[in-house]
């Protein structure tokens, strides 16, 4: 990590009361991102990555209980009063949601949704805000931006809508952008375009970015650091090149194996991770991944492995049988 962190998530847990008991969505997570850096958070559905992003934005459901600290730019967002938090959101802290079909308001024009953000945070008059909106739409690669301002979301394709959502997120030059599965709802052909757009704007604006995804392929080459989450916990965390070179956690390996290969022979079965994540309302005593892990042994079922430092700097993992180590399993 270079320089002081812009955002640091310290010992954050999120608990949701449900009819079936307490659901521990996020379990004592520590993470940080420096200014201008990119962090990838990877995990399958239900691992708590979206809840974590909502916890950072303070957009959790009313019933959710949050503990820990979310330090952003020297302030603890968890304890910040509503009005100051509101001034921060959209201004310094922006987000792109997963599904552009539902994240734009269907009854307001693109122009309204862009301009209202600009006018809320920057002191711009109507004309200046409109000019700036046109620039923003052009910057995210939307053709004929002037006409788009008058249009409604349903008149745009999914990829175009996500570009609009990105333009809105970038509108006030945020210091940190959280992209929550920004390409999951899009056509495969559009995904790379959107990711490249995000990467380009991130470099150009020197903002920090958190990309949340279930696809290790998305974070490879596009992030400085990756955190792998499983059952609400960070189970492996490393600088991106190090993670792919010296993967330690069997779950990370399984995630990587689950990406369909373009050069695989036809009719090869997908190497899906067998089983399902544990019921988050019934936490396991041992390692949460042990029931699905092909390397697990007795200790894994009894004790929870702590997130410990690995031999290489900045690399941490939570496993008793790390891959390619003396005590661990062969990869």
């Amino acid at each position, binding site marked *: 990590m270079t320089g002081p962190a812009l955002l640091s998530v310290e010992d954050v847990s999120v608990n949701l009361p449900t009819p079936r008991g307490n659901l521990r969505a996020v379990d004592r997570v520590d993470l940080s991102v420096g200014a201008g850096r990119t962090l990838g958070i990877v995990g399958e559905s239900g691992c708590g990555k979206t809840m974590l992003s909502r916890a950072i*934005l303070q*957009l959790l459901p009313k019933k959710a209980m949050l503990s820990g600290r979310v330090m952003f730019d020297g302030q603890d967002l968890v304890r910040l009063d509503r009005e100051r938090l*509101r*001034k*921060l*959101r*959209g*201004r310094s802290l*922006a*987000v792109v*949601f997963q*599904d552009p079909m*539902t*994240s*734009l*308001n*269907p*009854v*307001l024009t693109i122009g309204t949704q862009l301009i*209202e*953000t600009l006018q*809320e*945070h920057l002191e711009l008059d109507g004309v200046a805000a409109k000019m700036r909106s046109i620039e923003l739409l052009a910057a995210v690669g939307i053709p004929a931006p002037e006409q788009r301002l008058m249009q*409604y979301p*349903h*008149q745009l394709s999914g990829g175009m809508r996500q570009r609009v*959502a990105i333009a*809105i997120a970038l509108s006030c030059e945020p210091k940190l952008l959280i992209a929550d599965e920004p390409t999951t709802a899009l056509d495969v052909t559009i995904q790379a375009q959107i990711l490249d757009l995000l990467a380009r704007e991130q470099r150009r604006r020197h903002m920090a970015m958190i990309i949340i995804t279930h696809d290790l392929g998305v974070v490879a080459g596009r992030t400085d650091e990756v955190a792998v989450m499983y059952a609400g916990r960070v189970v492996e965390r490393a600088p991106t090149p190090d993670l792919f070179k010296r993967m330690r956690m069997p779950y990370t390996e399984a995630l990587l194996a689950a990406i369909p290969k373009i050069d695989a022979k036809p009719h090869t079965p997908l190497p899906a991770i067998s089983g399902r994540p544990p019921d988050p309302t019934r936490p396991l005593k041992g390692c949460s991944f042990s029931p699905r892990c092909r390397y697990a042994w007795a200790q894994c079922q009894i004790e929870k492995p702590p997130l410990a430092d690995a031999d290489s700097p900045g690399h941490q993992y939570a496993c008793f049988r790390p891959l390619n180590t003396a005590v661990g399993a062969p990869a």
Partner: protein
Amino acid sequence: MLGFVARRLLYLVPVLLAVSLLTFLIASLLPGDLAYTILGDQATPEKVAALRHDMGLDQPIWWRYLSWLGNVLQGDFGRSFRTGQTVLQAVTERLPVSLELMLLAQLGALTIGIPLAIACAVRSGSAFDRFMTGSAFSMLSVPAFLSAILLIYLFAVELRWLPATGYIPFHEDPVGNLRCFLLPALTLALGEWPVLMRVLRSDMIQTLQEDYIAMARAKGLKPSRILLVHALKPSSLTLVTVTGINIGRLIGGTVIVESIFALPGIGRLLLSAIFTRDLIILQGVVLIVALGYVMINFIVDLLYAVLDPRIRHGHA
């Protein structure tokens, strides 16, 4: 948008024809001969036959319908045989009263209903929400005649702020006119706000869970803007529908409220037409009220398109 309006207008033609046919049938299929009603039971059969011939009653029913429809299309809805007044005169005299009552009642119901619905939706499940939903439910079960009597007792008898009954035309005394309408409008509003409130509340609760509301919050917008611009507009389709139905219903006046407060509206016109068997007035008024109802629903359809651009563009 123009194409949308034209299409909707075209749909109206068959509806209006059906409305006119039904209205005509209701009036002509009522038991009793119009000629006997006019001449009284002492009339000679010759006189009756002559009058029937004059009025065209001896013609087949489809012919009578077509000639009546022809007259209606030229703006001639017929003339009361009792007062000699034309239907149009009678209606233009009474309609403003019913319209003013309807308008004030709707305004009242919306003014009470919308803010309460928003307040409940924001705190859904809270003690405040449960209390308001409960009170709305009990208000719904209070009949208009009861709330009318209670309001008269409170505001006219005890406090003496407002007149209990009577009507002053607007052009004579605008303030006095409003004072006459306050209690009857409030009576109607008290029966209607609970429906509006419950409908808007439940739609609003759903809208507030949408991603675009989370997005609006993530953009750092003011809570008032999120509620009034981002949430209220997409939540108001059912509200508009219900309000439209209420307005349509109230164009025909309200017999009970107009009677209690002695307001000379359409409701009382219909009532007296029924009592005096004044079929021409009855038929004409029912037709005009039905036309109004159809027009209001047409406007509601247009409002949908204004509120939701997806309807305007033929999506969704």
